[in-house]
């Protein structure tokens, strides 16, 4: 981890710039992390954040959709984007000598033309994407369950929206949403790997300094407590699924490091309590847990998939394990910390891995976490830290969701 420089600065219009330069890398990554997603949508515009993410690739004042696509292709950009309940991220991996060109294109993309004809065509693609996920039972359950768990709290809003909401949304409504959310002060432009920081800042100034700043708001609140139990039915489904959700810590909470270690102990894909009780025993073909830390709110989740006749038994084991979160040994704790640290180093060797860590941390906590710092935080998590985290977030009132064949 030698030879890594970390930088940050902010433009007059509030656009935050972050960079972690590592000259040992053979490539670089860069991306806009926009603090907006389905939780920032009004009910009637459900799915518009994600639809807009698609539209960003469909042309600007300067380039039409094909020019945009072809120019990224010409420089070998490996670009993509994703939308979640609270973040929309546009990013690319690129070879160093093409970095500046990619930055220019990415900055241009963030001011989309929202052409009506492209909008109409892309709407069909979104409807196909919705149909695609209709055929994926596990995805279907997670989306429904998060919606039912969060209830009136927008953190459970559907990212894709529904066929009805997407069919109804207009180009002008999307433009309104853009004007409400895509303020330079509501996003961070991040770069990592082998690139030149000075040039990156100068170019950001050149391409983005005219973007008008305006205030954006997101109301933060905790979820209204309460247990939910739901069974969803789908035709033609082979495996059944069970998901347990409880209130957990948010992305700003100090407890998040302890909760991450705890979720590794409980439900990592290997060597965890869920692994040994459900997968090693042959009861389930999938099981895991996660501390899903969001903006000012969060949930702890544990899930499993199994054959219909084993569902009750698997759910009972899942319930027992999540209800006894402190049943682990010092050895379990040490292994979880070691595993997490090794993963942080391995993903930190890749520019894209660092990009995601830096951009996310900034949008939630307005600070840069060096790789070394994150490792220290994980390494220092003690049993007492986990006990304290579980005192604050007791993981007691579990909501339970199932998906079964119709």
């Amino acid at each position: 981890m030698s030879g890594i420089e970390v930088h940050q600065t902010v433009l007059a219009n509030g656009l935050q710039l972050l960079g972690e330069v590592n000259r040992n890398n053979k490539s670089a990554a860069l991306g806009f992390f926009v603090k907006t997603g389905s939780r920032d949508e009004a009910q009637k515009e459900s799915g518009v954040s994600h639809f807009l993410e698609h539209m960003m690739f469909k042309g600007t004042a300067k380039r039409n959709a094909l020019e945009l696509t072809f120019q990224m292709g010409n420089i070998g950009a490996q670009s993509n984007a994703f939308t979640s309940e609270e973040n929309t991220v546009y990013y690319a991996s690129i070879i160093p000598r093409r970095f500046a060109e990619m930055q220019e294109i990415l900055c241009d993309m963030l001011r989309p033309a929202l052409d009506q004809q492209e909008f109409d065509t892309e709407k069909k693609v979104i409807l196909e994407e919705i149909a695609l996920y209709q055929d994926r039972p596990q995805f279907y359950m997670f989306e429904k369950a998060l919606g039912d768990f969060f209830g009136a709290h927008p953190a459970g809003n559907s990212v894709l929206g529904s066929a009805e909401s997407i069919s109804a949304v207009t180009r002008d409504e999307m433009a309104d949403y853009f004007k409400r959310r895509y303020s330079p002060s509501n996003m961070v432009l991040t770069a990592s790997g082998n690139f030149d920081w000075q040039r990156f800042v100068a170019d950001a100034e050149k391409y983005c300094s005219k973007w008008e700043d305006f205030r954006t708001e997101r109301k933060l609140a905790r979820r209204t407590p309460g247990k939910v139990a739901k069974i969803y039915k789908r035709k033609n489904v082979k495996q059944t699924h069970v998901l347990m959700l409880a209130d957990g810590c948010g992305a700003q909470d100090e407890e998040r490091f302890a909760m991450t270690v705890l979720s590794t102990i409980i439900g990592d894909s290997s060597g965890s309590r869920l692994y040994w009780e459900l997968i090693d025993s042959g009861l389930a073909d999938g099981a895991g847990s996660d501390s899903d830390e969001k903006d000012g709110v969060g949930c702890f989740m544990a899930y499993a998939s199994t054959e219909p006749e084993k569902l009750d038994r698997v759910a009972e084991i899942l319930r027992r394990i999540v209800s006894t979160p402190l049943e682990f040994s010092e050895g379990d704790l040490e292994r979880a910390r070691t595993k997490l640290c090794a993963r942080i180093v391995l993903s930190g060797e890749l520019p894209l891995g660092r990009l995601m860590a830096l951009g996310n941390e900034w949008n939630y906590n307005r600070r840069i976490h060096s790789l070394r710092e994150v490792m220290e935080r994980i390494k220092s998590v003690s049993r007492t830290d986990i006990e304290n985290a579980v005192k604050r977030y007791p993981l007691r009132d579990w909501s339970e969701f199932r998906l079964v064949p119709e």
Partner: protein
Amino acid sequence: MPSIEKLANGLTLIVEEIPHSESAAYELSIPGGMVLDPEDRIGACLILAELNARGAGNLDSKQLSNAFEEAGIRHAESADHDRFALRGSLLAEKLPRALELVSWIVLQPAHDPDEIESIQNVLLQELGSLVDHPAQRALVELGKRYYPAPFGRPSLGTEEGIRATTLQDLKSQWTQKFKPEGAVLSVAGKVTSAEVRKLAEQYFGEWSGKGPCLPEFGKLPPHRAFHVPFDSAQLQIALAYPSARFGDPDYYAAKVTTGLLSGGMFGRLFIEVREKRGLCYSVYARHGSTRNYGTVTVYAGTTAERAHETFEVTVKELRGLKGTVTEEELDRAKANLSAALVIGEESTASRASSNAFDWWIGGTVRTLDEIQAGIDAVTVASVDRYLERFPANSFMSLTLGSRELALS
């Protein structure tokens, strides 16, 4: 340039030194996998790969798993198409411990009979859950019909094969297949060749014998159209046809041509099917190669009423490439492939894995510069020559969904 040498027992050792890295990665490939399972035990290799790791040396299943985790080693094993693979990523200083544990799995697995049933249960559930993944299922169903036996065997095994496998079958498979001659150990990262050689000799030096030969590749079955009825929101369309395999003079032309069809967001399929017409969310062509054959696989998922148009446009693009590729388009596909190479090969895990794969299918290891030169050499003329040799005028096709499509 990676170093390649053969140890006295026949184990091939490939080491790529990456001094600026903090990590290392290993991949041990051993001949076996799905194509070498007995006809009535298809999927036995999957059980064996898992069973080997459930206790080895003087450690039981949990102790072995803990031993990897205590050292921060991310280890996994699998049975693939024609090999068993043991892979891992770690901080470089843990390599000795990693190779020690891997050698126990390979040389001294406990083969605890009590573990078999639970492994079978998980594998059968995974196999069953394919129904819940229609896109993947369509490609598996296509593969079964496209390749000659045993090359089309499904990667998840068969229910009968998994159920029928006994401890005796697994022990005999392990005895025959887990041998150093024919196997390859690839390591990349902050290591030196001398150090890895010493470790390999220390931990694998007493391993001996020759592994099995892989079966001869037969003739591809005649192309036909199949439909698998399934009540779902989308119709899955999957096509396959022959292409240049690894080592073929047109191999890089095949890669670039697939990029012309499906690279980045600029490929003709993406542009024509998705961007211009909005027919699909997912549409792509992939080029794949084993040591025996090369294949182009094309996939599109769309709602039933738009399926016919999707199919027509897709096929038109596949068939319309020859003689129409521009220099600009070619340069774009090449730039994309070159950049993907640099970006994709940044991790030690991908270097260890790519080196092992090259050796496995071609008996040689390419440096990134050699691959780059291969890509650079592709011209419009060589793309056309490739398309002349491997046209898309006939293909095997399969649809999966609620409505059958009249394919032509």
